[in-house]
């Protein structure tokens, strides 16, 4: 779900960097408001690396397999650190694996990062309802699935509307439909996976969720 270099019109790259700059500033401001912001940097950094590595895990969907995005989970676990963490992860992917790009780093961070912050707020809703195990599962699913859903929606909207040549309307409609079906399945898997992972972390290391 990464947009590579060279495909987008220049104004969108600038808009992407503008929004990413604003979101990074907002996240850093929230982080700096904490009592000791430096204390959580090593934890956030190692979890960033762990998220990066876990994107290499593939879920089999015969005859193919998908890799997890986990931006919703990043929002749940890292909170406001999620946006800078995603920005760093995308930068590493662009320069190390040529996955994504430098000129599209801003727009890719918007696609992945804003839904992560949204997932963080969704997950926190469980505290309003009494923090019961049932609500933890419900909001984990909603956070995981909705983050991927929003990312996919932004990604599809940007790629379909900005491919730099006139595409036949029917082809465009079919492409959107095919993408929506594919991402709906992935949303479901990502939501279930987030529930399973949050349950595991609650049993084994609950303090990770209170980062």
């Amino acid at each position: 779900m990464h947009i590579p270099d060279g495909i987008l019109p220049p104004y969108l790259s600038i808009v992407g960097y503008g929004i990413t700059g604003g979101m990074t500033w907002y996240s850093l401001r929230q982080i700096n408001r904490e009592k000791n912001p430096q204390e959580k940097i090593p934890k956030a950094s190692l979890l960033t690396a762990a998220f990066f590595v876990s994107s290499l895990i593939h879920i089999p969907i015969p005859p193919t397999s998908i890799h997890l995005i986990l931006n919703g989970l990043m929002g749940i676990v890292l909170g406001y650190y999620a946006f800078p963490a995603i920005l760093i992860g995308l930068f590493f992917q662009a320069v190390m694996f040529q996955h994504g790009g430098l000129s599209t780093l801003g727009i890719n961070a918007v696609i992945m990062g804003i839904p992560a912050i949204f997932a963080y707020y969704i997950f926190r809703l469980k505290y309003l309802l009494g923090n019961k195990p049932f609500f933890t599962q419900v909001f984990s699913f909603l956070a995981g699935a909705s983050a991927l859903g929003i990312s996919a929606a932004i990604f599809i909207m940007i790629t379909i509307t900005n491919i730099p040549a006139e595409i036949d309307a029917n082809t465009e409609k079919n492409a959107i439909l095919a993408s929506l079906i594919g991402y709906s399945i992935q949303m479901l898997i990502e939501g279930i996976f987030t529930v399973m992972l949050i349950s595991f972390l609650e049993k084994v290391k609950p303090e990770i969720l209170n980062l």
Partner: protein
Amino acid sequence: MKLALDKYCNINSPIHNWEQTSKLVALLSLIFAFAFVTKLTLLPVMILVTVTIFILSKLPLSFLISRLRYPGFFILAVIIFLPFVAGKTVILDWGIFTIKQEGCLAVIRIVTRFICILTVSLVLFGTAPFLKTIKSMKLLGLSAIIVDMMLLSYRYLEELGEMLTRMQRAIKLRGFQSHNLSKRNLEVIADLTGTLFVRSYEQSQRVYQAMILRGYGSNNNGHLLTTKNVKIDKISWLFSGITVIISVFLLLAEIYL
């Protein structure tokens, strides 16, 4: 997981000797100028500049080709897809399949921009140690929190990658077969991912304690890195100047030509 982005950073070439902070500014300006180019007449200029930079860097061609392998799938998809579906002017008609002029031009534009940007970014990050590049970003004003997170994440990426490989091997040896999608398989993969998080979290606590013992967070370790400490030699100024002029030329040509 082998990152090995900077494995050729010790070659002696004009690009390797170019001071990294000024190189970062200049080549990033070039990358953004490339991203702005849409006019076909400017594409040969882009290719010429890219080829010159790559030859000057003395990086092996095999290194560039190996880095193009993964995004190559994207290029292939663009080449196969766009000429058939984009545009209206038919230049070749094979019954069901028709190749359109607009689609072909879009392919040329996208693929050229993509390869040129990728090559320049490879030269930018492959001709200096990666840690030096991150320090250069700090000098240019990147937030200390982001720089610290980048340095620490980079430090542990390979280690966690190896940890994951070991755990995947261990679950395979215990009979796990991940060929189909089932609740049990998904649970095993979730537990595997969770274990990776728990281990990295525990390691982060040890890392933080070690960093505190070495004076991290005392607020007096950031002043050593300032732009005043950077010495940019004449050759680096020259390279930076030429690169920025080319970037400005491309932008102006794109607007006014």
